[in-house]
């Protein structure tokens, strides 16, 4: 329970950091998605249920605070959290490469789902080709940064005596 509370708290901190601080680096057009990075790390550290719940929390924060299409990000983050949580194996949790691959795939999965949902919401998704390079760059950045963030999270968990 202590682990889940700590993870939830860090998800909220991550959301605030992402939406209110990272935007100052928006001049580069591409910024890493720390909310997704945290979700991937926590989902790998837990099971499908906890991963799904953390995904719902992340998505709810985005849907309620920024977007007007309620449920869009809740669904996407829930799926990412639940899927990673379900298929994460305890033995591999120390493998940093796993975090990298999971973060990369999750980024692409998130944008693919967004494309699909927005297509059914009648958005002109044909123009998405122009943002494709940004998505690729974001995928690479997330895949690299997740390793460093995972190290910080491990350190924090160690400090708070929480079993990974």
């Amino acid at each position, binding site marked *: 329970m202590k682990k889940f509370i700590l993870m939830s708290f860090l998800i909220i901190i991550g959301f605030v950091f*992402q*939406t*209110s601080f*990272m*935007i100052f680096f*928006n*001049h580069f057009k591409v*910024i890493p*998605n720390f909310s997704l990075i945290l979700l991937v790390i926590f989902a790998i550290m837990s099971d499908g249920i906890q991963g799904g719940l953390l995904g719902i929390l992340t998505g709810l924060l985005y849907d309620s*605070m*920024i*977007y*007007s299409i309620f449920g869009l990000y809740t669904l996407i983050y829930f799926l990412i959290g639940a899927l990673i949580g379900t298929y994460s194996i305890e033995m591999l949790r120390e493998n940093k490469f796993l975090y990298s691959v999971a973060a990369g795939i999750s980024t692409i999965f998130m*944008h693919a789902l*967004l494309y699909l949902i*927005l297509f059914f919401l009648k*958005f*002109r*998704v044909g*123009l*998405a080709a*122009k*943002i494709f390079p*940004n*998505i690729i760059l*974001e995928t690479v950045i997330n895949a690299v940064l997740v390793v460093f963030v995972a190290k910080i999270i491990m350190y924090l968990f160690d400090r708070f005596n929480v079993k990974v």
Partner: protein
Amino acid sequence: MGFFGNLISGFQKIVYKTGNTLTNSFYSVQEIVKMREENIMLTENVYKLREQVRILENIINKSEALQTEYEMKKNLSYDYVVGQVIAIDDSNWFSRFTIDKGENDGIKQNDIVIQAVKTDEGIVQIGLIGIVTQTSSEWSKVITLLDESCKVSFRNIENDESGILQGSIDGTVTGYFFNSKVFAEPGDSLVTSGIGEVYIPDIYIGDVKDVVKTTDASTLRIIVEPAVDFTKINRVYVLKK
């Protein structure tokens, strides 16, 4: 005596020269140490002065922005609330943000969000940012002109013709004229037309950047350069309708 004197004087000469060289060397070393200290001091001064210049430039930039806002406020005939942006959408798909003012400050859904804009001619105008889509007691969500779901009816002030503008996923604002025979030129200024009664009329949207013929060649698609720089949105004005 002459020989001895010459020898002594030669020796004195050598000693003097040696002494002189040594003294000069000593002074040179002293000078180097002194110069190094001076160099450090001057470098520090340069840094301090650069910092002062930066602070002064910041003040000048701020005062220009405040002057622009003041000019806009003088011409503003609507009741307004000043809001601070507290969160911005970071995805590539949308263009939305949240401000720190909500229902408690009198903000309602569909209120217009604007910013003071200084044109190339130095005229201060009201620049359209977007519209309030959802409100809470303490904060409100805003969608900007760049967002796909934001549609604005516009009027070209050069020929008085109207049309519809829409944002897009890639962040460009494009539009069509209602009258397919109308022609527009790059540089034409666009303002809100007020049709549909969502947007207040005559709010400056931006200028026509490019005019493109559509595939069926029956209508013109205009690409618009918004007046507001959306990467620098910090303080916004919400017009209460």
